[in-house]
């Protein structure tokens, strides 16, 4: 939940723009649900309590809950035992992710990408100076899993894990924490671009070249390659964002997003004995 704080605080200090506050609340609660911080079926606190905790008016909160209901992330039951409940749809719909993407302005996405490039670039440079074969084993294993992951969500998890492991290979707890935080913001969105097999392969290729540069101790080129990798992904997200309805460029058909594999047994598989 910590990650949403920036957006919420920004919203609190822009009192004329109620829209921004609603979007900040939608994004924060949406992220928390997407990440499993709020569990499927969990009851949210009452409206006035939740509004108080988030530092927004009940009117703003109601608008946000309405938007979350439209995204299918919250259901509201009336009467005794009623209230708002987290509802994680079985299918991680592309539309739901697009609605999340629409909650970001292109400027915010650009800034998120700048932050991400700064963290990953610095991590790659330091990792090249401080690496040993053991660090590369984990990065290679993640690269391999990315290359074989079928659905967009698994690809996104491996993409994120690569950059977290890169920061850990830099021997920096601060950069690692920063990268983990960045991934909680961008991880779900990356599903939208990683659904395309061609782009998954491109990312895998870029990660491979980062590993090679780190292995060679080529710190400047490791930094540049890592920066370019995340800048390219951010650029794709911004292009998708611009293609969404309600923006100056108007609605355009999205490429590739229909390929996203749906995961019908999302909750069922995990308790199998390995």
């Amino acid at each position, binding site marked *: 939940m910590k990650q949403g704080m920036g957006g919420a605080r920004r919203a609190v200090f822009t009192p004329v723009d109620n829209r921004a506050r609603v979007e900040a609340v939608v994004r924060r609660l949406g992220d928390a649900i997407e990440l499993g911080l709020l569990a499927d079926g969990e009851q949210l606190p009452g409206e006035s309590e939740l509004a108080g905790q988030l530092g927004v008016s009940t009117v703003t909160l109601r608008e946000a809950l309405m938007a979350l209901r439209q995204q299918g992330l919250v259901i509201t039951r009336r009467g005794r035992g009623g209230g708002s409940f987290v509802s994680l749809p079985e299918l991680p719909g592309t539309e739901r992710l697009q609605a999340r993407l629409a909650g970001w302005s292109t400027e915010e996405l650009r800034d998120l990408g700048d932050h991400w490039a700064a963290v990953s670039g610095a991590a790659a440079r330091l990792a090249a100076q401080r690496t040993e074969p*053991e660090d590369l084993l984990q990065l290679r294993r993640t690269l391999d899993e990315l290359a074989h992951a079928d659905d967009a969500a698994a690809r996104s998890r491996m993409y994120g*894990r690569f950059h977290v492991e890169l920061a850990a290979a830099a021997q920096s707890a601060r950069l690692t924490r920063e990268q983990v935080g960045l991934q909680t913001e961008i991880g779900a969105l990356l599903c939208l671009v990683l659904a395309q097999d061609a782009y998954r392969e491109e990312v895998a290729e870029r990660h491979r070249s980062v590993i090679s540069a780190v292995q060679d101790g080529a710190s400047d080129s490791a930094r540049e390659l890592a920066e370019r990798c995340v800048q390219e992904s951010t650029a794709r997200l911004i292009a998708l964002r611009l293609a969404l309805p309600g923006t100056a460029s108007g609605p355009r058909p999205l490429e590739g997003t229909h390929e996203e594999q749906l995961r019908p047994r999302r909750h069922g598989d995990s308790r199998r004995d390995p």
Partner: protein
Amino acid sequence: MRSSSGPVGTATLDATPETGVAAGVRCVLEAVFDAVAQTRADATALLSRVTAGGRRPVSADLAALRPGLHLRLARCPLVSGAGFVARPGLLDDVPAWLEWWQSDSAGEVQPLLLDLDPQRSAYSDYTHWEWFALPRDTGERTVAGPYVDYLCSDEYSLTLSAPVTVAGRFAGVAAADVYLRHFEAAVLPLLQRLPGPAYLVNARGRVTASTDPGHLAGSLAKEPRPAASLARRRPVSEAGRRLVPCDGLPLVLVVAEP
């Protein structure tokens, strides 16, 4: 790994300042290994008892380890996390499990609750981490790190671990986390006794603690390689440096050749 005596060991215990410091470092970490050994004994006894009762252990059985874990977290100031990590498939009710407890910044003991569902978490498989894989593969106790522990604490850490076996079969590891800043606080006074800059490296050359501004903790000392000194378990000279192993631990003290 525990052979501190024997012909080689005693021969090297001539009282140079470096061997004294290496022994001091060893003493610091042996206190943590004592805590690991207690967890290991508790886990072994518990799992053997359950198995002897004719059933497979379940995650709830491991709650019996908690009083001991909490005691060790309270008593051993270097230990910030402690627990038993089950081999996947050991427990009947869950695919994988960490019975893991940590001291938070306020000194409160908290359980670590990880999402081990591979459908949701990228970090559900912990079996490749050195603190798990090395004791499993070697049967020996291990010092893993320093490394950024993004699984449990988000801290730059050392993890000391030992294998737990039940009826001859690997069941998991008993382990304890030492944050590197705490380790540094414990060993820096020892290193500062030496007349010149000195640093400790792990078996792969990663600097673990240092009074040498040119070799800070976390950096990689490409030369000299610590392997020869660790294998021979006695001081060696290489590349103008003297390497003194901390007997019984995969750590080597490096000082400039006098």
